[in-house]
């Protein structure tokens, strides 16, 4: 065509240099985003003229194997917008101080030469304290100098140490894996101080409690490349194509390799769009769906036809063959405790016989004691804690009998509660009789109980399901229809496809699961229903199989040395680590707005009363007293004061101090702070927040935070309900407002937390500091690096806390010149012999047992604090690591020579006559971690496996033999992401080009899970779980509005619509990060809107993009509506999580105050079973076990905003 000419003339094309110039850059530096997304993507930061121009993804991940798709490029729309922050008007460039406080501080400093005295003069005066508290969040920030800010922060810290004790100084920072040294900076400072770190995984409601319940493991999942091996992928409560942006290509690629992708989701999500099959089930009802799937699997693949692979798998790797004693209850029988070996004459005298459980051996036709159960883990003779099917006393081979059907002594009618229907079903279960120390008892296998629980009869009598169409019998495909809205035919088809695929592929079926299931009150039950389907089909511990929980689960791979460094364990143990849900439930006074009846409605039980009765706070207090959960502040007085009083009473040794404390507690002369949470002596006082948005994005009950922590304005309509309802704690008529003396926020952006804080310190962005990053979405470790120096007055978190430590040490030379003895209370810990502490529920405070520290109550330890040397300790890797070795998950191995190599070859610091590896710079700390961790040092890995070998009694060190010479350094990582080495701290096996999948180590090398039986648990043998009817997989009703009572105090302005309020992870932010930046706001709608169904919207006269107000008793949100047919009726979505700081008008229904954020509409409801402790896998570890900050059981009323929005 004549009019289309190709132009080649160079002269006419010389202008093309214009765009070439724009493209040019001077250097490229590898970094990533230390943000809570679990992406762990390696990025190249392009710097031009000393300024960050833009970022693109690194493409140089070492390929795992040529038959698995690669990881390049990793990084999403949010990450690629990060460079916007550096030079944006939202950037915190200088230190800021709240104006009202600045005025007070400067006046006080003029009067007091001593900064600590100056601070005391402000906070000791209620009027001046109120003045700046009430100003919080309301503008009036003023620029200050680093010098002034550091002095104020250090003065408040020292004052609080002296006046209230270190356990009143708290810190919050989430998800260390994303930038582990930035996290460690603050936690190291706090722990050397004796302060408290709040947990995050449980608070974010991302901790899947079912994981510790079933596997004794916090969370371990497959890397995303492993999805590619799966042949049946089910996504539930997760929206991978929206939230796992850099990973989801593996799903597409698996689909093109013959995998089927099924999405369970109430809305037509972006993942549903991507799926072979969308199952539109009702929100929060995934558990009902899976229970019915399990019913079909049990019937067709375990009863009508036995699949050898499945039967062999559950016999070896689950508790299915273990024996449960049946107990008489009226006319019927109920499942009781697992029968322990101590009850059998044959095993009399076995060490820890109460913690060795029994199965029925086919050959000897007798109950026998297999290896690998909890007792073998902690007994003196090592080497029998493994999954070989052998008798632990004589080594005889065992063949476990799964079912007594056909070989039973009798059939017992066993009662099963169907809570949702309010009835009890009686079903026959085959039993054998066993002679025990207590006489003859009837036992059933967990496997048989599982059939009975799911209503699969196998010819047994009683109220079993007649067939799949029996809608009255739990848990049939017909039964689940009323809860899920899913047709029974779909459930049957799903179950058959699932199990057939697993049978054909030896378990290559997987579940991707996340917040959409995990953030409900009864989430652990839903998870267990899905896990049952996995374990019944042999899908756990397989490449391409397993439960892949992806929400907030970031994996800090080099965990052992990192934990030592992050929690100051290189200087002193134990650390003060607090589960945040309990902390915030109590201290932000959310408990005051809840009655005792609320709990009984939320959590129905067959036999109310007894252990299950009471107010949630009563359960919380009991959990603290019995050592199940931590709680800080610990006691009604400073821990320094406690030691001083004990010493004054004549105590000399640590043991005598502990004895004195126990006596005082028993006599109630000394009380736990949680027993009187609103007393001023129980308040937290100083709060450090860094790397997180603690006051909004994660603040379930945000408005309660504003009222009770901050003492500023709030939008709460709810009335108090706990008066007279709480038995174990003091009720104070007047709820305190403004418990906190000081809130310090380290931030690079002015987010809601910064806006409401007293001191805002300018933090370096991810392109301005050195750090380490790992995730469980892939199996590499790689760095953050400073592409440019910290901009303006910013400093890295490491340098900021180092500076605070230096200032604290300076003031301490005057105020705390000598070492101080501190009493630390700590809960019974998972992966320690404390797992054997409490087989029964006995409360020492009620005289049911003796108070014994570390056994029936919290452990008591005396720790010496050295404040003048706090800064020196901060920058020195302490000697405890060298002496005690590294520990993780109950393993310990020596690293003294590796420590000495650091002293010999790397920078050191010298003081007090000793030389230590230097931690002065973050990159030095990174190198110290890399040099010690088994995941990055092959020698350390080999030794850790050797230590594990000893415990397990089977060869394992061969796994580390080939990579024993590997030594990674920070400089190596700067060149290329490196794949992590296998380590016994984790459970996947990656040698020989394998993708990481959880629990392969357990299945292939017979290392037990860290549970009661050492196997995967269908049955939760704990008196608390039995009391709450949750020992077996079960269904409990999703709480509706009448139970939740979210709208009792909220006036109805019609027309309105009441909707279930969900806050799933969204497309345009990672929590609140990125969601306030111009790129993401432009690509969305310039606001964080409320998504609702078109008919629901039409019913209240709302058109697309209209302003709406969503309110309930907790607060109010004002935003615009997105009206869409892809949202089902009856629910609305406000994607997690908007800031109040960007484009939020005022809320008419709350006095025309500024509209809130998504957490203005939530408050937490803690589940008591998750507070249990001191027994097997139900034993505390931080971010590992404990109640969660669930938030999806929430309703709101939505109305159209009248008139124009008010700003």
């Amino acid at each position, binding site marked *: 065509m004549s009019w289309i000419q190709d132009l080649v003339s160079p002269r006419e094309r010389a202008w093309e240099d214009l765009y070439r110039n724009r493209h040019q850059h001077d250097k490229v530096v590898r970094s990533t985003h230390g943000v809570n997304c679990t992406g762990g993507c390696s990025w190249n930061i392009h710097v031009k003229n000393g300024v960050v121009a833009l970022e693109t993804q690194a493409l140089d991940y070492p390929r795992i194997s040529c*038959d698995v*798709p690669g990881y390049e490029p990793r990084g999403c729309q949010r990450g690629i917008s990060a460079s916007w922050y550096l030079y944006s008007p939202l950037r915190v460039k200088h230190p800021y101080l709240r104006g009202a406080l600045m005025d007070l501080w400067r006046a006080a400093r003029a009067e007091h030469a001593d900064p600590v005295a100056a601070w005391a003069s402000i906070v000791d005066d209620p009027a001046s304290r109120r003045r700046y508290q009430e100003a919080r969040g309301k503008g009036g920030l003023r620029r200050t100098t680093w010098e002034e800010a550091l002095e104020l922060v250090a003065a408040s810290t020292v004052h609080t140490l002296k006046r209230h004790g270190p356990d009143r100084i708290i810190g919050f920072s989430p998800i260390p894996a994303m930038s582990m040294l930035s996290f460690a900076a603050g936690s190291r400072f706090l722990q050397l101080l004796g302060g408290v770190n709040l947990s995050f995984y449980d608070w974010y409601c991302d901790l899947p409690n079912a994981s510790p319940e079933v596997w004794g493991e916090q969370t371990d999942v497959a890397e995303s490349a492993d999805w590619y091996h799966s042949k049946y992928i089910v996504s539930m409560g997760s929206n991978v194509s929206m939230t796992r942006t850099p990973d989801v290509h593996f799903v597409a690629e698996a689909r093109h390799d013959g995998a089927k992708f099924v999405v369970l989701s109430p809305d037509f999500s972006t993942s549903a769009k991507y799926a072979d099959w969308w199952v539109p089930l009702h929100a929060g009802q995934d558990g009902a769906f899976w229970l019915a799937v399990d019913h079909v699997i049990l019937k067709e693949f375990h009863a009508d036809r036995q699949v050898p692979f499945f039967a062999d798998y559950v016999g070896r790797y689950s508790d299915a063959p273990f024996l449960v004693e049946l107990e008489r209850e009226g006319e019927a029988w109920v499942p009781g405790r697992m029968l322990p070996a101590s009850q059998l004459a044959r095993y009399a005298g076995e060490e820890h016989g109460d913690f060795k459980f029994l199965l029925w051996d086919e050959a000897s036709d007798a109950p026998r004691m297999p290896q690998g159960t909890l007792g073998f883990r902690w007994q003196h003779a090592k080497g029998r804690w493994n999954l070989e099917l052998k008798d632990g006393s004589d080594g005889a081979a065992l063949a476990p009998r799964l079912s007594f059907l056909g070989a039973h002594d009798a059939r017992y009618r066993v009662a099963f509660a169907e809570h949702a229907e309010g009835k009890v079903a009686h079903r026959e279960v085959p039993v054998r009789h066993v002679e025990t120390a207590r006489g003859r008892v009837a036992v059933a296998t967990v496997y048989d109980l599982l059939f009975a629980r799911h209503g699969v009869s196998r010819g047994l009598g009683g109220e079993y399901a007649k067939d799949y169409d029996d809608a009255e019998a739990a848990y049939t495909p017909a039964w689940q229809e009323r809860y899920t809205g899913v047709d029974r035919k779909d459930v049957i088809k799903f179950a058959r496809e699932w199990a057939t695929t697993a049978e054909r592929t030896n378990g290559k079926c997987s579940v991707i699961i996340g917040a959409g299931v995990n953030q409900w009150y009864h989430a652990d039950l839903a998870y267990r229903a899905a896990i049952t389907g996995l374990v019944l089909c042999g899908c756990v511990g397989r490449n391409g199989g397993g439960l892949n929980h992806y929400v907030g689960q970031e994996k800090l791979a080099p965990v052992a040395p990192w934990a030592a460094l992050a929690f100051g364990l290189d200087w002193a143990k134990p650390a003060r680590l607090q589960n945040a849900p309990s902390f915030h439930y109590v201290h932000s006074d959310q408990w005051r707005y809840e009655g005792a009846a609320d709990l009984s409605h939320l959590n129905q039980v067959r036999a109310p009363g007894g252990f299950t009765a009471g107010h949630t706070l009563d359960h919380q207090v009991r959990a603290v007293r019995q050592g199940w959960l931590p709680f800080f502040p610990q006691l009604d007085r400073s821990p320094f004061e406690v030691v001083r009083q004990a010493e004054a009473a004549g105590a000399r040794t640590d043991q005598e101090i502990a004895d004195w404390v126990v006596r005082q507690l028993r006599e109630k002369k000394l009380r736990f702070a949680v027993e009187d949470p609103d007393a001023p002596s129980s308040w937290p006082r100083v709060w450090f927040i860094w790397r997180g948005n603690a006051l909004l994005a994660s603040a379930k009950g945000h408005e309660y935070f504003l009222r009770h922590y901050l003492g500023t304005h709030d939008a709460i309509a709810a009335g108090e309900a706990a008066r007279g309802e709480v038995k174990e704690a003091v009720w104070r008529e007047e709820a305190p407002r403004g418990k906190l003396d000081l809130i310090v926020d380290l931030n690079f952006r002015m987010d809601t937390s910064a806006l409401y804080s007293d001191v805002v310190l300018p933090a370096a962005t991810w392109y301005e500091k050195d750090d380490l990053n790992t995730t469980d979405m892939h199996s590499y470790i790689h760095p953050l690096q400073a592409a440019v120096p910290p901009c303006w007055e910013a400093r890295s978190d490491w340098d900021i806390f180092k500076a605070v430590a230096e200032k604290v040490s300076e003031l301490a030379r005057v105020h705390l010149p000598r070492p101080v003895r501190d009493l630390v209370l700590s809960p019974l810990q998972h992966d320690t012999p404390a797992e054997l502490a409490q087989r029964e529920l006995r409360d020492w405070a009620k005289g049911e047992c003796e108070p014994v520290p570390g056994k029936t109550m919290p452990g008591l330890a005396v720790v010496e604090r050295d404040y003048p040397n706090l800064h020196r300790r901060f920058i020195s890797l302490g000697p405890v690591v060298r002496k005690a070795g590294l520990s993780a998950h109950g393993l310990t191995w020596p690293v003294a020579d590796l420590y000495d190599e650091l002293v010999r070859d790397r920078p050191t610091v010298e003081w007090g006559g000793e030389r230590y590896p230097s931690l002065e710079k973050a990159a030095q700390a990174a190198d110290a971690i890399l040099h010690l961790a088994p995941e990055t040092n092959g020698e350390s890995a080999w030794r850790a496996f050797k230590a594990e070998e000893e415990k397990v009694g089977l060869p394992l060190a061969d796994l580390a033999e080939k990579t024993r010479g590997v030594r990674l350094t920070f400089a190596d990582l700067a060149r290329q992401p490196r794949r992590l080495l296998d380590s016994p701290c984790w459970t996947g096996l990656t040698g020989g080009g394998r993708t990481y999948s959880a629990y392969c180590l357990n299945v292939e090398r017979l290392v037990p899970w860290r549970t009661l039986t050492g196997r995967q648990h269908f049955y939760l043998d704990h008196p608390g779980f039995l009391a709450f009817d949750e020992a077996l997989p079960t269904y409990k009703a999703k709480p509706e509005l009448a139970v939740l009572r979210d709208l009792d105090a909220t006036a109805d302005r019609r027309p309105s619509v009441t909707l279930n309020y969900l806050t799933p992870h969204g497309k345009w932010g990672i929590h609140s990060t990125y969601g306030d930046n111009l790129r993401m706001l432009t690509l969305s709608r310039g606001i964080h809107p409320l998504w609702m169904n078109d008919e629901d919207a039409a019913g209240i006269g709302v058109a697309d993009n209209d302003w709406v107000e969503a309110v309930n008793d907790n607060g109010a949100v004002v935003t615009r509506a997105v009206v869409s047919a892809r949202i089902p009726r009856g629910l609305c979505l406000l994607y997690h999580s908007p800031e109040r700081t960007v484009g939020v008008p005022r809320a008419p229904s709350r006095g025309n105050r500024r509209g809130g954020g998504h957490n203005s509409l939530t408050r937490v409801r803690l589940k008591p079973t998750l507070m249990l402790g001191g027994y097997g896998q139900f034993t505390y570890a931080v971010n590992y076990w404990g109640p969660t900050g669930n938030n999806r059981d929430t309703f709101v009323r939505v109305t159209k905003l009248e008139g124009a929005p008010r700003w």
Partner: protein
Amino acid sequence: MNVRAQISSVFHLDKCIGCHTCSVACKNQWTDRRGVEYAWWNDVETKPGAGYPVLWEDQEKYRGGWTVEGGRPALRQGGPGATLARLFHNPALPVLKDYYEPFTYRYQDLFDAPAGDDQPTARPISLLDGRPIDIESGPNWDDDLGGSPVYAAQDPGLARLTAAEREQLFEVERLAFFYLPRICNHCLNPACVAACPSGAIYKRGEDGVVLVSQDKCRSWRMCISACPYKKVYYNWSTGKSEKCILCYPRLEVGEAPACFHTCVGRIRYLGVLLYDADRLAAAASRPDAELVEAQREVLLDPADPAVAAEARASGVSEQVLEAARRSPVWRFVKEWGLALPLHAEWRTLPMLFYVPPLLPALAGPAEGDGGFFTSLERARLPLRYLAGLFGAGNTEVVEAAYRKLIAVRLHRRAAQVGDLPPAAAAGALAAAGLTPRQADEIYRLTALASMPERVVIPGLAREEQTEPTADPQRQYAAGFGFLRPPVGR
């Protein structure tokens, strides 16, 4: 035969997750500037949807692309005479509200707000004049069916459907959507080039990239209305039109264009296609239903020695020829017929091709009786809608592509799991016209290919371009100071 080389692309829509990483990569690299705040050279749209600029597919309104007059292609907006008449008033031009008014926020207020009685918030303001605005549109406004009763319902492509079909597309258990990422198509018959009164737009000889010379552009903006894809944008600050440059500065150094490099869904493929320029006019003049096939016919087999000889004779370099033989685009477009041009009926011969998305099957009880995978019969989006996008109305070319996509999956399932009737996979392959080996190759390129296999960039002999303007006695191109001296020096 007049052989030329075109760097061309395939977007595999089945893998697209609509994340917009591509859009931000492009924005950061090229249009984060005054005058083009509103311009997204790369954007991603939800279909059905109204798109960006709104209703850009409606050529009744915008008059873009070509029609056929007297057996020859003719610009829909009119030839040179009509252009002259509309130089000062072109009613077919999109205006700002058809894109959106770019906005930002008064972030500084968060720092500067004086102490008051309530929390400050950063109000939205216009990025153009700083005044407070109500945000009512954006470059991705109907993302994920947002505002479906308004925007998705307006999709011009729905006109091909019956009223009943349209209605059910907006019932929650029947609706469907997918993503359509769009950049400049770097067409073989670009309407923008033909429409430019200043001769400022040209195709580069070595790679076919279409560029607006920032020297020659005189802001007549005829390219903006002529481009039916609305992928030329007016920079109101410089007074020049700008558009996607396929990141030629990156191509020239062997790097993938930014949107390809950053495509985290791994949907983007890039490679050389050879074509016969002598056959373009005829191809662009065929009836709608034949246009997809006509466009395939102008593509030449790089493995054919005769084509290679002609190519050399036409000045195609050995490096480009070698790259053409490794081109993933050739395989998707020509060898397998899986990738299809967007709106071929506009006759610009676009050189960006789309593998259509496997569509979700119907949800709900009906699935209980359905097959194992997606099937064409049970797809939620009517094929006629897809044919309107990717087949110039011809459903057969779209169906053929789908038969292959489905057959590959059945074939792989049979090989990997073996739980489907053996005849199912074989039958599907036969019906799609694929051999098992071809199916494996399609699977490999779809699933396993790494970046160097997905993006095959020829060496572009930059020294030949710089030679005429460089001083051979000095360092060749990386001199101190300016590649291009400032005006007046």
